[in-house]
């Protein structure tokens, strides 16, 4: 009883806080002269940025400035706060606009200071070797530290208390590891499982943790790391290289001379070998796009629901208030869905990676799994 009461009070408080917060944001949005534009608002929230925006809007916003690192005529390191969200230049460096949006550009003169609106600034070149610690890189480091900490402490538990019942964090991690080993890694890889287990487990927990961190709307979560194509691309690239390097003779023979296919598909025009060759690259490509699209789509839908409040609020504030509970409800629903998706996508990426590697290793007894993959 007591717990239930507390629960209701807490829920009411949360909803009230959300309403108040949205009302405040509404006022801020109304104050902007150009009005609220949902498209750029949403994109701005799912892409990378040079600072970690925490709260507030415009000049009053609270942002953690992150370092910009460039290899452009020597090493250039400076804080992103010098660039004022793209409104200023520092030693000739400024945030790109138009087709260079998202990059750092070098202006033709080494200008430092405010960039006037409406004035044309000539771009000398785009900085190619830009290894700035952006919001996503920062989130990457945070998640790496978190994963390393979690798993080293769990490993320590195993060392300290060998052959004992799992406790604490160990009890949370172990069922997942056992599930992955028994349901994903061992069935796909058979006797070669031990060799690839470290990679696949690392992959799963990296994706899962970053998916979950991405759902958290406030610092230190909120960076859309697994919804970034560079991140999913690198993960897919790892799977791609591991698959190719573990490919045995059978694997390559099947690509060149696919069994079970009529001969006229191979000679004189090598259609089938060509399709198989393309298949080598489409598999990791699909891995990359699937994770990226799933996570980004979830975030876009949530941001869309939140945007509804502002869109209606622009018409009349009352409408904005009326819509906000609906938006919040949909947000909660989508949040639950995203939680599910976070697990599913981590699982699917790992499962498919395991199957691709298993196919390359030529594990005869797991034909059914390979069928599933197609």
């Amino acid at each position, binding site marked *: 009883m007591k717990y239930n009461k507390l629960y209701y009070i807490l829920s009411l408080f949360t909803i009230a806080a959300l309403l108040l917060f949205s009302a405040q944001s509404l006022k801020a949005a109304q104050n902007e002269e150009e009005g609220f534009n949902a498209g750029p608002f949403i*994109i701005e929230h*799912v*892409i*990378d940025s040079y600072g970690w925006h925490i709260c507030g809007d415009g000049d009053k916003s609270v942002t953690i400035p992150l370092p910009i*690192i460039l290899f452009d005529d020597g090493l250039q390191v400076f804080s992103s706060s010098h660039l004022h969200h793209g409104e200023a230049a520092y030693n000739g460096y400024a945030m790109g606009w138009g087709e260079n*949006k*998202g*990059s750092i550009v070098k202006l033709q003169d080494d200008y430092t200071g405010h960039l006037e609106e409406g004035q044309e600034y000539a771009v000398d070149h785009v900085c*190619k*070797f*830009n*290894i*700035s*610690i*952006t919001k*996503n*890189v920062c989130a*990457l*480091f945070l998640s*790496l530290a978190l*994963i*390393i900490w979690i*798993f*080293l402490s*769990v*490993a320590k538990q*195993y*060392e300290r208390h*060998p*052959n*004992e019942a799992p406790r604490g964090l160990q009890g949370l*991690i*172990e069922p997942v*590891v*056992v599930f992955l*080993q028994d349901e994903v890694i061992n069935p796909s890889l058979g006797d070669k499982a031990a060799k690839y*287990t*470290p*990679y696949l*487990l*690392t992959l799963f927990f*990296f994706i899962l943790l970053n998916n979950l961190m991405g759902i958290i709307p406030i610092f230190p979560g909120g960076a859309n790391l697994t919804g*970034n*194509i*560079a*991140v999913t*691309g*690198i*993960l897919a690239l*790892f799977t791609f290289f591991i698959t190719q390097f573990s490919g045995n003779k059978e694997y390559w023979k099947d690509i060149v001379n696919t069994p079970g296919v009529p001969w006229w598909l191979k000679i004189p025009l090598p259609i089938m070998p060509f399709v198989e060759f393309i298949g080598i690259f489409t598999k990791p490509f699909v891995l990359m796009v699937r994770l*990226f699209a799933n996570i*980004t789509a979830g975030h876009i839908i949530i941001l869309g629901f939140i945007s509804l409040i502002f869109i209606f609020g622009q018409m009349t504030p009352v409408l904005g208030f009326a819509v906000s509970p609906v938006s919040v409800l949909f947000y909660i629903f989508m949040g639950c869905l995203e939680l599910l998706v976070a697990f599913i996508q981590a699982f699917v990426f790992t499962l498919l990676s395991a199957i691709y590697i298993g196919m390359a290793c030529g594990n005869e007894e797991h034909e059914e799994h390979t069928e599933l993959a197609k």
Partner: protein
Amino acid sequence: MELIKPSFGLIFWMLIGFSILFFILARFAWPVITNGIASRNKKIQDQLDEAAKVHEEMEKIHLRHDEMVAQAKADRDAILAEARKISAEIQENAKAKADSEAQAIIEEAKKAIHFEKMKAMTDVKNEIANLSIDIAEKVMAQELSDKAKQEQLISKWVEENQLN
């Protein structure tokens, strides 16, 4: 289009970061964790096997114990039966011996009685003979007196003898 344009910086850091993560976990975490799980699994399996073995052993012991109890009971019954038989035999023997002894004593007594009887008969015969001689003597002595007196006297002595 910024959404689907991978940035160089993130690719760079991701390559380094994920490689570092992989090497640290592959070196220090996964072997320990997977071996830990495998070793615990093995231990549990071993203990289960051992428990099954012990259970089997226990069953065997139980069986043997039952057998032993049954054997002991059978032995006891046999011993008791033997004892009963022996005791019956002893009783039988004792009875037969007592009977034969009693018979012997009776025989002896009968013999003794017969002997005594014979002896008494002999004595009586001798006494009667003596008495007859005495009477004959007295009759002889009185023979010359009157005949009536003689008869009176004889009947008087016969009477006396009869009374004796």
